[in-house]
């Protein structure tokens, strides 16, 4: 595709305690550009008061997670042609289930604190990578083409997408439980108590929106199911251990 498109970005605006509203920005874009590039252009040429988070522009930092037309996306790897057409409107909102700081930026501190609580490590060495092949292979790519490590980038998209996290902030959430699974229970009673409770692994209701939202192939929903099994095994073991 070589011709440019005219699209409208309908962006959530929210400052302080004021009620949120949407502002429209019409701009010319190339359909192969990424959405984050268009948002940056809005900030650069239309409204310098627009607040959004971004850093690496290649899906490593996890800063630019937003809702695009209602769906959780990492905007730095979301091509414009995937979410709209020429003359179309793209609705951009902050992630759900986190307090909004301003416009498109949410407060992710609860996510970071909980990740630390379960002993999550930001990057796993390949030797400890739980995925069978170590890296996630692109399905439609040549055999020797690998996409990226399946490490959590702590973007928060999975928690934003989770319908259960919408109704309670007590639920640990997909990223945290996946972090606990990657860390491993390893006989850690504190971690076991943390995840084996009503707001831990048993709160998940199998919507698997987290797997759909995850841009890093962590598949948190699958990890939660694996953690459930690990919890059951640990509990059975402790049953026999206490009987000795």
């Amino acid at each position, binding site marked *: 595709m070589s011709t440019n498109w005219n699209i409208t970005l309908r962006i959530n605006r929210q400052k302080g305690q004021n009620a949120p509203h949407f502002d429209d920005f019409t701009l010319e874009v190339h359909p192969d550009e990424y959405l984050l590039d268009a948002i940056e252009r809005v900030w650069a040429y239309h409204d310098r008061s627009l607040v959004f988070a971004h850093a690496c522009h290649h899906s490593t930092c996890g800063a630019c997670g937003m809702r695009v037309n209602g769906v959780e996306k990492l905007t730095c790897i979301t091509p414009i042609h995937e979410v709209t057409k020429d003359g179309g409107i793209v609705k951009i909102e902050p992630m759900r289930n986190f307090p909004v700081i301003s416009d498109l930026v949410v407060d992710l501190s609860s996510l970071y604190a909980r990740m630390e609580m379960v002993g999550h490590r930001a990057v796993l060495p390949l030797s400890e990578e739980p995925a069978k092949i170590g890296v996630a292979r692109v399905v439609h790519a040549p055999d020797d083409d690998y996409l990226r490590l399946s490490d959590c980038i702590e973007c928060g998209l999975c928690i934003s997408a989770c*319908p259960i996290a919408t*109704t309670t902030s007590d639920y640990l959430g997909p990223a945290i439980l996946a972090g606990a699974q990657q860390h491993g229970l390893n006989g850690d009673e504190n971690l076991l108590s943390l995840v084996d409770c009503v707001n831990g692994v048993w709160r998940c209701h199998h919507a*698997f929106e987290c797997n*759909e939202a995850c841009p890093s192939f962590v598949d948190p929903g699958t990890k939660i199911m694996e953690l459930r099994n690990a919890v059951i095994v640990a509990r059975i073991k402790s049953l026999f251990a206490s009987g000795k």
Partner: protein
Amino acid sequence: MAVDTNKPSSANWWKWFDPRARDVGTWAFILNRITALGLTLYLFLHLVVLSTLAQGPQAYESFLNLIKNPIYTFGELLVVIAGIYHGLNGIRIGWTTFFKGAPIQKQILYVVLVVALIFIIFFAIRMFTT
């Protein structure tokens, strides 16, 4: 200072039933919730109906005559549909939890829907033709 309008809240319970911009896993989740509520409602209705037995055989007979109406048969079919889907989806949930079915949860759901449809058609024909 962060504002609270986007925070999780129990007041958002209705969003569980909002299928917009959601994937098939959530549709299965929504259907599971709706069928569970339907079956619970039916349980209470069932108990209310059974209570007519206490009013004597005549009262119960007149009620049985009332439910021969096709509208009631359709209502009973809805109960059957709810029971079939809820039961089969329960197997799917057990499979994803305990038997490494999570990576293929969508495919399992499609199988559940096809099997459910076969059962539903079978029961619908039986209920409306006998």
